């Protein structure tokens, strides 16, 4: 890998990281397109690499910032993590045999659909200022 490529990769990481903190996501939705278009990886390679990058707790710094304002529900987060471990394996098994182009189309469609759902929610009147709390359990 040449120095130029190495610097590009590090910069991609920094940009994706800003998205991680700003949007509370893992960064994969930014990493995958960046790896495909800037580093010319094929779709599978980009996805596999993205998953590998997301293994270390890269969002830890961002999480601590959210926690300062109390915007975190740890119980919900931990339960989700358990489900994700299993689900991630299933998803990987589905993706690997697919063709790169199909996978790319599906990824694009998925992102656009989620975007539309969120936008429709954001355009409605905000729910009463009181944020929902789930810590109580039931």
């Amino acid at each position: 890998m040449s120095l130029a490529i190495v610097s590009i990769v590090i910069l991609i990481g920094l940009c994706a990281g800003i998205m991680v903190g700003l949007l509370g996501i893992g960064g994969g939705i930014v990493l995958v397109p960046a790896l495909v278009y800037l580093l010319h990886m094929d779709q599978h390679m980009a996805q596999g690499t993205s998953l590998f990058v997301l293994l270390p707790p890269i969002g830890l710094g961002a999480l601590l910032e959210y926690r300062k304002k109390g915007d975190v529900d740890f119980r919900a987060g931990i339960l989700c993590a358990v489900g994700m471990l299993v689900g991630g394996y299933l998803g990987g098994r589905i993706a690997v045999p697919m063709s790169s182009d199909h996978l790319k189309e599906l990824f694009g469609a998925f992102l656009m659909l989620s975007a539309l759902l969120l936008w429709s929610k954001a355009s409605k009147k905000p729910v009463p200022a009181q944020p929902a709390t789930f810590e109580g359990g039931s």
Partner: protein
Amino acid sequence: MSKTIGFLLAGVAGGVLSGLFGIGGGTVLIPIFGLLLAFDQHKAQGTSLVALIPPTGLLAVIAYAKSGYVSWLAGILLVPGLFVGGIIGAKIAKRMEPRRMRQVFAVLMFLLGAWEAMGAFRH
């Protein structure tokens, strides 16, 4: 109890899409938290980050690696930028109003999605 099951199921859904698309899963978790479980946008995003701290994608990485679909060197180089960027992004997020944040999120995802889909069709 029903909430516990709901969170676990949200995790499984997030995980399947995570493995399928090579993403962290936050893209899936945040809409689920926000739209189905009525979290506000900041709380949805903060909680999603908790779910992304453990290496939940480990089994998915193994599935990809078996077929040679992982570039280890590029992966390692991406980590430091992501970590630092994450802190910067979170500091920006704290100053934003929740509805505005959800809009930023939606627009970004739509653009990325359109970009991906176009790329596939041009082939």
